[in-house]
């Protein structure tokens, strides 16, 4: 058993489950699609972490690996990013919301990825150290799907958070949302870099990136959604 490689993702998973609960509770009251998509994305984040922890505690199991790879490596960033798409893109083309079109593409892409991941041949001896990694997938054409989803996720989630932070900052309103979005952008980048470093062979980079990402995004969400303190904006204006 690799204790640290199990406890670190377990912590990420617990934080993400709680975080998802907060977000889905909001969706339950206001039924806005971005909360639902973020909630689903965070559940994927939590499942990914849980699978890493199960692998750390109990060792290799193909189902654990497939669930981890599908939710934790391929889909999570894109589904979180899709939430931001619903929040920020209101444009319509021929009467149809662009966000709905992108959602349909993401859904089809996700189903295709699920099929490919669950039908792929695996070899756990190809993984380095005690971490789960995509190296275990032998079947060609599966791992190559991941960057497409992650590029979409980074552009939408990180780009959307930076854009939102900038808009609130420029208008000098709701400073809490500027700071909250900065935390969210930084948190979303952490697993992206962790995953990249893991691909280049740095141990624990992904798990650490995911943990830092979960913590920073949760702080960002709590900061963004707290009521603005009286006089906060005024103080920024004076600064």
């Amino acid at each position: 058993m690799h204790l640290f490689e199990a406890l670190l993702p377990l912590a990420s998973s617990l934080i993400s489950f709680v975080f998802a609960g907060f977000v889905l509770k909001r969706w339950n009251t206001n039924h806005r699609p971005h909360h639902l998509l973020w909630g689903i994305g965070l559940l994927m984040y939590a499942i990914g972490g849980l699978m890493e922890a199960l692998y750390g505690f109990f060792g290799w199991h193909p189902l654990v690996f497939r669930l981890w790879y599908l939710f934790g490596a391929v889909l999570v960033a894109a589904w979180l990013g899709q939430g931001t798409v619903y929040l920020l893109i209101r444009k319509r083309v021929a009467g149809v919301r662009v966000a709905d079109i992108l959602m349909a593409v993401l859904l089809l892409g996700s189903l295709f990825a699920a099929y490919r991941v669950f039908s792929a041949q695996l070899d756990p001896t190809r993984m380095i150290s005690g971490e789960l990694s995509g190296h275990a997938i032998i079947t060609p054409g599966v791992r190559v799907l991941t960057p497409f989803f992650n590029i979409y996720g980074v552009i939408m989630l990180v780009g959307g958070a930076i854009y939102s932070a900038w808009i609130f900052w420029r208008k000098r309103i709701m400073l809490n949302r500027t700071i909250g979005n900065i935390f969210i952008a930084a948190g979303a980048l952490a697993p992206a870099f962790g995953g990249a470093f893991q691909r280049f062979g740095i141990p624990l980079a992904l798990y650490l990136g995911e943990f830092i990402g979960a913590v920073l995004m949760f702080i960002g969400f709590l900061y963004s959604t707290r009521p603005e303190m009286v006089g906060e904006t005024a103080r920024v204006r004076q600064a």
Partner: protein
Amino acid sequence: MERVIPVVLIGLGAAALIALLIAIYVLAAGT
């Protein structure tokens, strides 16, 4: 605060671009 936030946002934007470039590199490498 007035100067820090724009610098932080530019830094995050640069980091996001680097993350994208890495993802595109991974894609091009076909791994």
